[in-house]
């Protein structure tokens, strides 16, 4: 009946449990990796391939994550519909690609292929931006001062609405992207299995993210966005149009997501109305991993998640003789998420935000 004593025991039990948890994870990682590496089943080329796959996918996650992180930074809300904005971009890119293919431009020569892809990226970014701005206007702006769960539910509603709108528009079938033949060719570095499409995705993602970063950090609008995400009312007093800053944030994030949609579709060669869901959740995970609200953090988080998804299952689990390890890549991704939240809730780079809100 001694409450104090009881509390101490629970406290201890929880601490013990958490340590058990940590040690367990570390053990699985170390023992699994050792077993896998010593088994000699994989040669360095395979590891490189996995690494490259992870980096490519991670760049896409990073681009989507930027939208989550910026919107969270400025509105403190999870834009649940962001995955659908990404999917809209993939669809926009698809129809552009078909049109370009019909015109014979997509595969005419490498230069024309490249220009076609740039056009696809631009169209996709435009489509996504329009949709995100509309969603912000209709589903989020009226709820800006509402309690936190309200916009979250509205965002979930928007997510469903967009998914099934696209299903209504384009049907439930999976559209396969037109082939850009040059992208599937090997880059030709000896021993390394690297395709041009991976190079394209990584380079495009890096360029766009750098541009975005510079825009947010250097430009006047970017400064306004950062000011609003620090403190809305003070920013408004400084003469910043808060609404415009918020819309710009949505537009920027959406443009990145739209472009990421095209890149993702070029990688996996297909798109359907449900395409946005899983990458959306993964990208959100990346944003949290990197420290939500933090732009470089989102980029880092995305790359990290991509790598851990690509390499993790093989590295940690093959050694234990687990069948079909690739099924478990999402388990690793989400375990990572929980681990980060438990042991470092501010994310990899999230110190500033965490302290600011403490």
């Amino acid at each position, binding site marked *: 009946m001694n409450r104090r004593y009881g509390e101490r025991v629970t406290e201890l039990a929880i601490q013990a449990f958490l340590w058990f948890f940590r040690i367990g994870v570390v053990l699985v990682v170390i023992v699994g990796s050792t077993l896998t590496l010593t088994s000699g089943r994989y040669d360095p080329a395979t590891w490189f391939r996995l690494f490259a796959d992870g980096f490519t996918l991670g760049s896409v996650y990073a681009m989507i994550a930027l939208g989550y992180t910026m919107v969270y930074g400025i509105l403190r809300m999870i834009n649940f519909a962001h995955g659908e904005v990404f999917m809209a971009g993939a669809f926009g890119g698809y129809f552009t690609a078909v049109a370009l293919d019909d015109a014979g431009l997509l595969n005419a020569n490498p230069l024309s292929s490249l220009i076609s892809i740039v056009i696809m990226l631009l169209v996709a970014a435009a489509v996504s931006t329009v949709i995100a701005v509309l969603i912000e206007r209709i589903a989020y702006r009226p709820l800006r001062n509402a*309690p936190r769960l309200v916009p979250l539910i509205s965002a979930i509603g928007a997510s469903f609405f967009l998914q099934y709108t696209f299903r209504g528009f384009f049907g439930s079938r999976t559209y396969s992207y037109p082939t850009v033949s040059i992208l599937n060719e090997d880059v030709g570095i000896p021993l390394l299995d690297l395709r041009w499409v991976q190079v394209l995705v990584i380079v495009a993602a890096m360029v766009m993210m750098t541009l975005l970063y510079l825009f947010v950090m250097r430009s006047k609008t970017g400064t306004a966005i950062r000011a609003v995400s620090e403190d809305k009312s003070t920013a408004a007093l400084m003469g910043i149009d808060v609404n415009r800053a918020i819309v710009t944030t949505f537009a920027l994030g959406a443009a990145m997501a739209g472009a990421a949609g095209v890149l993702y579709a070029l990688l996996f060669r297909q798109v359907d109305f449900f395409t946005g869901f899983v990458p959306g959740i993964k990208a959100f995970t990346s944003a949290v991993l990197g420290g939500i609200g933090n732009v470089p953090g989102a980029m880092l988080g995305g790359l990290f998640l991509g790598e851990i998804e690509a390499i993790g299952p093989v590295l940690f689990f093959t050694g234990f003789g*687990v069948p079909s390890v690739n099924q478990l890549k999402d388990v690793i991704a989400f375990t990572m998420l929980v681990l980060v939240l438990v042991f470092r809730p501010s994310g990899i780079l999230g110190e500033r935000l965490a302290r600011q809100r403490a």
Partner: protein
Amino acid sequence: MTAISSTITRPLARRWRHVIAIGALGAAVALYLALVGIVPTFEARAMISSVLALGETFVLGTMMVIGYLAARYFDGQPAMSVLAGAIAGLMTGSALTLLMLIGPAIDLRSIFLNASDSLYGVLTLGRGLDFLWIPMVGGVVVGALGGGLRILPRPIQKSIAAGLLSLVALGLFSNLLRKPLLASPFASIGRLLFASEGLTLFGAAVTLSGALGAGIGGAIGARFGSRRWGMLTGVALGMIGSLVIGLLAADLAPSALARPEFAALGGVLGGVIGVGMGGLLGGAIARRVSSLRLDRQFDALPSPARSAIRATPLIPLLFLVLVLPFAFGQNFAQVIVLVAIYILMGLGLNITLGLAGLLDLGFVAFFAVGAYTVSLLTSTSPFGIADFSWWIAVPFAVGVAFMFGAFLGLPILGIRGDYLAIATLGFGEIIRILSVSDLLRPWLGGPQGITNVPKPFDVPPGDPLSGPSQIYYIALICAGVIAFIAFRLRDSRIGRAWVAIREDEDVAEALGINLIQTKLLAYALGAAFAGLGGAVFAALIGATFPTSINLLVSINVAALIIVGGMGSVPGVIVGAVVLIGLPELFREFQEYRYLFYGAALMVLMRFRPEGLLPSRSVQRELHVEENVEPAGAPVGSSVAQIEAEREGDVERDSPYSEPPAKETP
């Protein structure tokens, strides 16, 4: 009202600009409805038999609403109202005409699947592309009608709107209502009102008469002091009047009702008589009733008698709930079982989310644990590990789910707010992936799941308790038990501790509440109830498939609580009926279920964020916040809160506003 009065002073050009904007909105909505496939797909469903189909209803409804909205800018100017409505309607219709002009020319079909001949057929009322003007004319007429509606006095406006809405509702649910009506002694009335699909024209006339009767009766009743009684008599007499005429006509000249124009005439005639009588009689009754001063007499009654009278309406309701599975057939029984299971889980999450304020988006994990535990313990397939009966397996399922809740809850207790939502979402996904994975396949059956789960009651086929109905009763009883537990917990010491944590964790801790124990208990209790839900679900399906375990379950449960009203038990029931029951009933439009679901979530959050049936404190809270919403107000501005506190209203019951996430202690 302030918005309306301020519009009158606006300059004319500005008002027309608004009308044009509304028209453009209508055009966009009409195009959306057409291209997303709602118009052509729903054309297959009759609203008013052989007169109006659901697809057309959407277009006409849009035009009408647009016309009405456009007329808002010309209040008190009848001609202008009609004109504004007509113009906005014209714009809406023209968009469709334009679509039919451009669509075939540029092969729009290669992008938008629905830009097909069947769509164009619907839009031209089946006459083909030579009749492009039909939507435009329709837009003008219906838009003008919508604008004209605005001229009428407010109560009449309301009753017409209500009549049109109930027309749509009755048309949609006609299949459901017709079946029991035909089986009852009132079969002839049933046949008169409902066609094999949708309402008959006569039924539509009866519905409108009823609504109109309500308006007029209410208006007259209001003059005599009791609007409610006037409306009630108005509805009753309006409908009875037209029904009587209809029945007489059916007796005297059976062939007359087969002709739609006669049927409508009969309905309208009956409606006019009924409405007139309803108005007068309603007034008389209202006068008599208000002279009785019933409310004072009610207040004078002793307390037990008062609660007995309050509870009276519940008795027929209870009866209805008990006979539901038999009244409407097997399909319907299946739907309400699902609703009952979601009520069960909603009540569970209501403890975690509604009381303790922990948003759990991975609720499906515990649902899965419950379902798999029951399946493993009872299944007669090779995966079964014990041949328990369902009843013995359930306590195990609940216990295992509880332990899982505690186990998963431990590491994440320090996480707050949105982070918690996303961490739990991660858990849900982990469990889902594990359940399909090859890793656990030797035990859980992988994608094939575990089949051959026996029913709780082993009854021969043909028995009334075979099929879903027995599960329905079991789910109801479970839901009742959980509701009772939740109700008793809410005002207990632990319940108050949960609410305190929801309001402010730091303050709660300072007051001596053990955060970890209290939160863990909320989390694990919610998990246990989800496990119970899973156990019932496994019995319903007779198996556990990993496909039943998906994020949608978690989202559904969270959404139904919020839509129903957080922390309120009736709210959970309403939320489950609205979000689970309604979409299941319209399985014929499966493709569009989640479209409407999503739209409904957005609309609800916009216009009724406190939910459909909120607990009183939540409602008060949200209305306090509404009062302080000047543009650009600082986030979380709490002027009203401070004022409320100063007035002694210290019940700051905000389940939503968790403090921002902080580092774990």
